[in-house]
């Protein structure tokens, strides 16, 4: 890992999307192939230049939906790196980390990282998420207690935060409204109608304290990224997106007294590692792209990644600091709530767009250092990247 002031680990040279849709849009495997072709074209590469493929499958899908045979679908031969990474919502960020490290060590030159998912069925998206997260420690206990849906697991932590720090439903609303303001400026976002507090409060609860508008907006689609060496990215057609720092944090659970997610999660560890290996502090970060499948995740991320003290993110958001024109733009494409939910690739893609300076109506003024996060389980698995248009941060 580079020391502060040294060159970045690697760079992102290509970004590709499939169609993103609220309707069935082909198989997950087909969507992945489309996104990969688009990313290779975007990087100005030929398929023969690709020598690595890292795959992030949705935890909602089976391994057969996105098999290693994706390599053959694309006619990719003689790969020197090929793997699935299965760390739930932190996987998209993790595969970019592993690609960068592999490139830095000479294992590969151009690595494709892809995520694809088809959670929205003809009857809608909700059923795909009506599974219990295993947060009790006893497999099968959630089903026995009717503790169904990721929404319930996250709502339990949110309610704890509300009790501990006085976080209010108006604060969840403020985060959702900030994201909606960004989405209204993004051509890729799905929810672009202005969102008021009245609208938010009229949104029905699903699992109190969460309403429909506290939850991600799932779509079917795929996003692929090409990770390349710094030197090769500099000769490509796009402004290089330098990877300056990376970190992971997986705190683990005991299930005993004091095992309290609102005190700390693994995200703080991921942050500490990433800031240290980039030689920066949170104060130097100019924008954030958080994995925010729930409104409350944005609040937790601001606190865990060191932008606010515990319990102070709600006031930070209601003061307008995360919205367009604020001092710390957050989830500039609308994030998972108003943009689209493609798990970890939603924040990754928006981070790349912002670093390249191609965000058009939602382009941030200062893109010098952008934090991208991934989060899986129920605040269990965390990974982050620090991206910049600058080859040196010093």
């Amino acid at each position: 890992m580079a020391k502060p002031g040294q060159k970045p680990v690697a760079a992102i040279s290509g970004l590709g999307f499939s169609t993103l849709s609220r309707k069935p849009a082909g198989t997950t495997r087909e969507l992945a192939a489309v996104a990969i072709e688009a990313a290779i074209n975007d990087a100005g590469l030929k398929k023969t230049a690709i020598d690595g493929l890292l795959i992030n499958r949705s935890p909602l899908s089976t391994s057969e939906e996105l098999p290693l045979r994706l390599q053959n679908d694309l006619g990719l031969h003689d790969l020197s790196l090929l793997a699935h990474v299965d760390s739930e919502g932190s996987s998209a960020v993790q595969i970019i980390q592993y690609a960068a490290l592999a490139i830095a060590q000479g294992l590969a030159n151009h690595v494709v990282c892809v995520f694809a998912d088809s959670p929205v069925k003809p009857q809608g998206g909700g059923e795909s998420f009506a599974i219990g997260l295993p947060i009790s420690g006893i497999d099968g206990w959630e089903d026995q207690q009717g503790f169904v849906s990721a929404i319930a697991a996250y709502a339990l932590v949110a309610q704890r935060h509300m009790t501990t720090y006085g976080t209010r439903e108006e604060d969840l609303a403020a985060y959702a409204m900030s994201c909606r303001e960004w989405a209204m400026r993004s051509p890729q976002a799905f929810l672009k109608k202005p969102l008021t507090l009245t609208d938010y409060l009229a949104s029905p609860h699903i699992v109190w304290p969460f309403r429909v508008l506290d939850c991600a907006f799932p779509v079917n689609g795929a996003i692929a990224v090409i990770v390349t060496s710094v030197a090769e990215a500099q000769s490509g057609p796009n402004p290089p997106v330098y990877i300056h720092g990376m970190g992971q944090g997986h705190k683990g659970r005991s299930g005993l007294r004091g095992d309290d997610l609102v005190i700390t999660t693994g995200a703080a560890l991921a942050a500490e590692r990433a800031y240290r290996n980039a030689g920066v502090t949170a104060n130097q970060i100019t924008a954030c792209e958080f994995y925010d499948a729930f409104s409350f995740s944005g609040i937790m991320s601001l606190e865990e990644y060191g932008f606010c003290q515990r319990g102070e993110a709600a006031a930070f958001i209601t003061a307008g600091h995360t919205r367009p024109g604020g001092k710390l733009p957050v989830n500039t494409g609308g994030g998972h709530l108003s943009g689209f939910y493609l798990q970890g690739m939603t924040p990754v893609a928006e981070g790349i767009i912002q670093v390249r300076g191609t965000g058009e109506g939602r382009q941030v003024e200062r893109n010098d250092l952008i934090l991208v996060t991934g989060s899986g389980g129920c605040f269990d698995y965390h990974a982050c990247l620090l991206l910049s248009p600058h080859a040196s941060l010093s």
Partner: protein
Amino acid sequence: MSVLHDTFDQEFLSFIAQKELRIPVDSLTHEALGLHARSWRANPRDTEQTVRWMPAAGTGTIVSHVIFHRQYSPDFPLPHIVALVELTEGPQLLGRLVDIDATQIAAGLAVTVDFDKKGLIFRPSMP
């Protein structure tokens, strides 16, 4: 009784099926273990497992709770409230919370374990 690590869930659930809440306790330190921390620590002197299931007092306090407004299963009609409870011995346990007005639920509220036909439930403790 000693516990084999691949039967931990079944052991816990078999006591529940008998309307009994037992918690894992380290038989060397006599300290309660969390339900995630299975501590399959072999006794260094032999291969005996050192986790034992001890009857819980069946009391605890609410850490957090959620109220389902969407009915995901016909087995759990609304109102359906689930609380995360810190048992008196220390382990945290998720369970259905019944016989309480939602507006009366608060962190720190004392609850007691009971069983209905679907399994374990929590009720507010009698004053």
